[in-house]
């Protein structure tokens, strides 16, 4: 079965990003497909490559990047949510005359239409939120 996931909360502060990750791992292990994970609202904070959690804790951002690379999953961020909250790709930094970007590998900015598109294309759209 094809799943799409929607994540609406930031890492660490809420468990939702952890639950989504554990769900994704279990779904992939059972032979299901995940095409796209969409990060909306505070969910965009999951994509900052500047995140440095304590060494004995999980690294949520890197975990997403690794999962995406391993299983060819699109990690998309709502660009309006991301810009507002300070998550920028190179293009966003350039356009807004900011000296740096902070998007982690494997993530890409997108429009909300691509969330709708994910919902249409997938057999199930699951959201993980506050």
């Amino acid at each position, binding site marked *: 079965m094809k799943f799409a996931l*929607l994540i609406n909360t930031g890492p660490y502060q809420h468990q939702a990003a952890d639950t989504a990750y554990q769900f994704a791992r279990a779904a992939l292990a059972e032979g299901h497909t995940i095409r796209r994970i969409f990060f*909306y*609202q505070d969910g965009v904070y999951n994509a900052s490559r500047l995140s440095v959690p304590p060494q004995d804790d999980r690294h949520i951002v890197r975990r997403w990047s690794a999962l995406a690379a391993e299983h060819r999953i699109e990690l998309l961020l709502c660009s*309006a*949510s991301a810009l507002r909250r300070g998550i920028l790709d190179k293009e966003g930094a350039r356009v807004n005359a900011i000296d740096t970007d902070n998007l982690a590998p494997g993530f890409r900015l997108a*429009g*909300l*239409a691509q*969330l*709708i*598109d994910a*919902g*249409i*294309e997938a057999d199930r*759209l699951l*959201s993980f*939120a506050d």
Partner: protein
Amino acid sequence: MSTKKRIMIVNHRPPHGTLHAWESLDLTLTAAAFEQEVSVVFMGDGVFQLLADQDTSQINIKNFAPAYRTFRDYDIRHVYVEKEALARRGLSSDDLLIDVNLVDTGALCRLMTEQDIILHF
């Protein structure tokens, strides 16, 4: 992509205290522009999103409430408000920014059964 799905967006929270109402509205308008069959539900404190006369100038936060009036332009006709939620707050449909369908729990249950995707905010 030509497939059409029935998408329902359910709003539970009051506006301004958090960004949920605004970002839910953005998603609703996007889904409608994408020509999906969109239903919008306001239940519990979510009914406060549609209250008329919101004036955010004193807290210097952008007032997005007028955007609910664009529902008509986006051809969003399935707008449902939980009847009991309004009543319990001493409100009636006359207090709201736009025309809505007042529904009870049973009717909302049936509407949910018709959807392909249901997202809560």
